[in-house]
């Protein structure tokens, strides 16, 4: 067994596994809490703890995405249709109006993403409609939640197995008493 060190495992750069709305600092803080709770010893156990943390992050991320996709206030962006609509609109406009429109569009800032509303029962039909519109995507996210939970269970099981082996390794070999009698 390799010598243990007290530092976090953080292998490799966790920033590469995180999305834009997740921070490496929060990841490190969570990892140190998990390490305090699970008491890993050695690189293998620390790695196992890190994988458990990643599964938890995956579950949280998938649930967050489901909530965002079901946000009834979010606008559905149809990029191609918008381009065609814009093109048709421009083709019907007077040149001076077109020039004014170009100036105005240069000043428009991109809209902020809408926040999901909280606790309003009247939004249920809209949420159900969004769910029906995105059934394929919802199925993918829900399957990923289930897969991450399964990976988490397996990672915890493997961690306990390694810790159990380590604990048994520290017990001195048994002596057979009275074998020669």
């Amino acid at each position, binding site marked *: 067994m390799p010598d243990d060190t007290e530092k976090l495992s953080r292998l490799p750069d966790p920033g*590469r596994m995180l999305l834009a709305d997740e921070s490496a600092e929060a990841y490190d803080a969570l990892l140190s809490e998990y390490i305090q709770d699970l008491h890993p010893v050695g690189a293998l156990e620390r*790695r196992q703890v890190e994988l458990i943390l990643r599964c938890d992050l995956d579950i949280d991320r998938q649930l967050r995405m489901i909530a965002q996709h079901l946000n009834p206030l979010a606008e559905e962006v149809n990029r*191609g*249709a918008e381009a065609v609509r814009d093109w048709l609109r421009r083709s019907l406009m007077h040149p001076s109006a077109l020039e004014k429109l170009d100036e105005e569009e240069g000043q428009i800032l991109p809209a902020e993403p809408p926040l999901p509303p909280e606790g309003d029962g009247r939004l249920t039909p809209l949420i159900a409609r969004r769910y029906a519109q995105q059934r394929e995507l919802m199925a993918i996210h829900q399957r990923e939640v289930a897969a991450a939970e399964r990976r988490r269970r397996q990672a915890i099981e493997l961690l306990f197995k390694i810790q159990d082996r380590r604990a048994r390794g520290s017990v001195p070999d048994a002596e057979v008493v009275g074998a020669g009698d």
Partner: protein
Amino acid sequence: MTGGRGAQRRHGAQSRPPREDIMVHLERILGVTPDAVALLEPDEATAAALHLAECEARLDRAHRHYAEAQGVNRHADLDHLQDHLEDLMYFNWIEDAAKREAAARVMRLERLSTRYANHGKRLAGRYLREAQSRRDRALEHYLAYY
């Protein structure tokens, strides 16, 4: 729109990770920097550690690909094509009305773009599950020498 059969194994998420990534894991697993001679003719324990290190590096790569795929809701190649079509339409370079209508219809192929993105998400999930499974098996094998 993407590479042919087996392209992921050669270039993508399932390709062999760089040697540096494997060595980082190997050093952590063994606790020491292995010398080149030991790696040329590894004993069973070192071979198991080496296999585990490679599986760990593959798992990291699959996880990174998985995280990247979560934020992709459109297919980049199709977007690129739509950009070209938009330019053609915007500058009235398509004279023929029927062709212009065809271009407009291509612009409305949103479902195709979403479908490709969803396909990418499914694949990323599958790669991660496979990498995790291989890594867990490699760990169980290595534990015999631990």
